[in-house]
């Protein structure tokens, strides 16, 4: 028993610090996707409600492709695809050296695309839940489209969309483990390394579960705070 605890401890013989480093990578990666993925998803949702057929089509294609493609493939496409493209381009200009795309950046780009695709469905559902009267009232008051979106639609959208976005976030948190294939050491990668070195799979997979559960609990807290914030107008005085 003590041996097992030793394995989870810090320092020379323990894997505690490695797991912690992995957790940091996981959190950073997932957090960096949020400011890109969610707004892009909103944009896609707006696109699929647009009056222009072209915008609708590209929104549908985007959502189908990035929901449909295996995340691993999206990751590869971004990571290796962009590198190959960049190298071709540079060779065209006579530069022969290698270009290295940062794995972290590639991961953020790829998972932002995936997050955008899945969250666009959530945004879309939330749009349907906002009464048409809100938009009409905004138009009757002469508000511009941007003001309407920012001041009227969005705050109401958030309340309805948050539970679904929470699901997206939890999925993202776990999907990011795929970055180990492009040599980023997240929680899962560190776990399997520890398993290889120590041959204690059950211990370390349990530890990984606990880490993820802690992350979920923490983000759950944040999300329910946000939910409370966006529904404050419903609490009776």
């Amino acid at each position, binding site marked *: 028993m003590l041996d097992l605890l030793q394995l989870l401890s810090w320092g020379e013989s323990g894997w505690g610090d490695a797991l912690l480093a992995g957790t940091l990578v996981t959190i950073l990666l997932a957090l960096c996707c949020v400011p890109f993925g969610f707004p892009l998803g909103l944009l896609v949702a707006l696109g699929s409600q647009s009056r222009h057929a072209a915008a609708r089509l590209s929104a549908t294609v985007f959502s189908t492709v990035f929901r449909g493609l295996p995340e691993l493939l999206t990751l*590869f496409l971004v990571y290796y695809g962009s590198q190959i493209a960049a190298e071709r381009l540079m060779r065209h200009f006579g530069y022969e050296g290698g270009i290295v795309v940062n*794995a972290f950046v590639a991961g953020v780009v790829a998972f932002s695309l995936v997050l955008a695709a899945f969250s666009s469905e959530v945004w879309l559902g939330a749009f349907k839940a906002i009464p048409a009267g809100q938009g009409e009232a905004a138009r009757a008051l002469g508000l511009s489209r941007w003001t309407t979106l920012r001041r009227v639609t969005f705050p109401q959208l958030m309340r309805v969309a948050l539970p679904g976005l929470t699901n997206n976030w939890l999925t993202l948190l776990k999907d990011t483990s795929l970055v180990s*294939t492009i*040599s980023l050491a997240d929680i899962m990668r560190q776990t*399997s*390394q520890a398993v290889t*070195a120590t*041959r204690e799979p059950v211990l370390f997979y349990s530890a990984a579960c606990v880490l993820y559960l802690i992350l979920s609990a923490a983000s759950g807290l944040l999300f329910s705070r946000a939910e409370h914030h966006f529904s404050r107008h419903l609490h009776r005085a």
Partner: protein
Amino acid sequence: ETLRVGLEAAYPPFSAPSAKGGYVGFDIDIANALCRQMQVECQFVAQDWDGIIPALMARKFDAIISSMAVTKERAEQVDFTGRYYRTSMSVAVPRDAEAGSLDAAAFKGKVVGAQSSSTPGMYAEDVYGKAGAEVRLYPTADEAGSDLASGRLDALVHDKYPLIEWMRKRSHDCCRLLGDLPGTMDDIAIAVRKGDDALRTRLDEAILAIRADGSYQRISQRYFGLDIY
């Protein structure tokens, strides 16, 4: 000048992570010896086995020193140096198994495990699978080993040295070695990008050099008690 070396780090005793953050194993020691010989600095990059060749081609590192067996398909994608060791495959079975033959026909109806994307995996599929065994492919040999121990597998095919290492480390002895598979001797070599002849030649020369000065033999003795070249 540094040499960026890609490795899987999940293949003890050849390469495995250490709790201290670095990597340990035969491959690492060899790589360090080669770098010293070439008077460059070794920089290790750990990488999932599945993405190791694409990563080499995408210049994430310059050479793979990760117990990679030379195969025809791989040789189409990368260039190999001369071998730095050779290994054959072995078969392990549960201690109480009555089987005694390595013959493919003897495994008909049995469940045989191996690591996927590895030469033993291909062997298991091509030989035992065709002979009527059910082949199960695991992400790493460790998991296959644990299924062998728990009785889900009737046999496990794996490279000889890691298999021995695994059985040695296993505290309670569940299993026994059935023997080496004849005709499976594979060359293990360093992979570099296609056309990177300069590096390939330097590495070839360095391998010969560390054999000549005996440092190779010392490393091999330390891990296996014999020279596995």
